[in-house]
């Protein structure tokens, strides 16, 4: 990218209210905005800055703040700068707007976030389950779902204790059993 493009991009982005821009490096631009302003930002980027490619939508569960962070990674084939737009959505009702009408690929990512985090997107074409169709527990990617506990409750382990191992154990050797605390997920 050249600096003129970068300048014009910066000018363009200032049109959005309350936007905070951070240049992480030459090709990465971080934009923190409020959740309400995001559709406007995306429409602006797609319409006027050539950001036609939605690379991904990531969701982060900030359980201590009781918020979901949604990150929209956008790429322009012209300016070659990747913009990551960060927004925060309250965890409790867990509802946000779909950007499917701006970016078609959003449908898959929103569907994925819905089944993994339970965050509902209004206006998304398909909110049915895709991966976890036969799963009836809580959304597993939430921080309050303890995967390991679920495994311990539902499965048993193969007890492999052959004679040669018993012999070694009699001589004082053997498999070092790790303490359960180290297995526990934090």
């Amino acid at each position, binding site marked *: 990218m050249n600096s003129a493009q970068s300048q014009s991009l910066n000018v363009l982005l200032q049109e959005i209210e309350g936007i905070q821009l951070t240049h992480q490096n030459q*090709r*990465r631009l971080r934009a923190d905005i409020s959740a309400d302003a995001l559709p406007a930002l995306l429409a602006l980027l797609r319409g006027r800055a050539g950001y*036609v*490619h*939605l*690379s*991904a939508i*990531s*969701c*982060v*569960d900030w359980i201590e703040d009781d918020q979901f962070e949604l*990150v929209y*990674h956008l*790429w322009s*084939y012209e300016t*070659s700068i*990747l913009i*990551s737009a960060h927004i925060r959505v309250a965890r409790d009702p867990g509802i946000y707007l779909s950007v499917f009408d701006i*970016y*078609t*690929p959003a*449908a*898959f990512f929103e569907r*994925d976030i819905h089944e*993994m985090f339970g965050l509902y997107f209004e206006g998304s074409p398909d909110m049915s389950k*895709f*991966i*976890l*169709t*036969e799963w009836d527990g809580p959304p*597993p*990617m939430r921080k309050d*779902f303890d*995967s*390991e506990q679920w495994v311990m409750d539902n499965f048993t382990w193969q007890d492999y204790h052959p004679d040669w191992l018993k012999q070694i154990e009699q001589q004082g050797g053997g498999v070092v059993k790790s303490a359960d605390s180290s297995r526990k*997920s*934090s």
Partner: protein
Amino acid sequence: MRPENYQAVNHPPSHEYELNFGPNHPGIEGNYALKVKLQGDIVIEARADGGYLHRGFEKLMENRLWIQNIALVPRICVPDPVPMEVCYSLAVEDLDDIKVPERAQWLRVLQLELSRIAAHLFTFGGHAATTGMYTPMYWGVTDRDLILDLFEELTGGRVYSIYNLPGGVRQDMPEGFLQRVTQTMDYIDGRLKDYDNLFFTNQIFIRRSKGVGVINQQQALEWGVTGPNLRACGLAFDVRRDDSYLIYDQLDFDIPTEDAGDAWARTLVRRMELVESIRIVRQVVQALPDIKGPVRTPIPNPLAWRVKAGDSYTRVESSKGELAYYIVSNGEEKPYRVHIRGPSSMHAVQVLEKLSVGCRLEDVAQTMFSLDACPPEVDR
């Protein structure tokens, strides 16, 4: 989407029926399912059904140390695991500001490109097999094995190498390795002529695959198509060049494109990329002896390693398309959140569903294989 020689027939709706492709079906790549509704021979509705390969990687990675995750990441894409390791390492290096020695970067590129060659050989073998031609599959998989032998020599593992760590690569290459790389490249270069005669100039194959699953450039950008599938629509975009990582900006390679955007063009683009990858490997082989230095920047005690807080979105070009990791660290021993953007997650779900509609029953499998969709990436 329809072959040129197709003429529409209006069947009464009672001729509609449903057919399941997968999860255990030779016309499906891996463990994946596509439910199609057909009218006669024409697909009128298609619905992808995934999750058969779901392991909850993103959850697992939150529960393991930064260094433990290196063993986990290559499993995400089985046919092409190396970009997964490199991308994860790049992301962690970006977070923790680790500088990678130059020699390690070249070694990574060497391994990445060898992996790309292996993946492409595997893919067009698979594409040929869906049209009933098994000989290219037998040849392709066998030639791929020679590259796996190189991996084994370099890293100790045939498929999953676990060779890239944050900070560099695990060890330097063995004595005489570059010579054997050159030999293998020469062999594969020579074999390409056989493949052309058997496969890429095969008139029946061209007739089968031309006009199947057409994506035009507009649709490709709209649907988020990446990688070779995007280049088959005429857009010369490659993360290696346009969002350059490692030392790709020092290398001389072309980005092959095709305009047709159909199954044939996609396979042809892969064929041309094979040549480019061989070219890159040869350049690396030439340059590597002159680049001295360590292959790894030491990292702190890995069992108590706390990566600096922050987030990083890192992309690499895998053989399937744009692969990205979004990693969030809150300064703990384990990642706070890892999001994997598998290149196939677009191709195997939305694009495949759209392309299948209007497609013949004969061409459903071909469409999927020509998109080079990799189900474990979708399911994670």
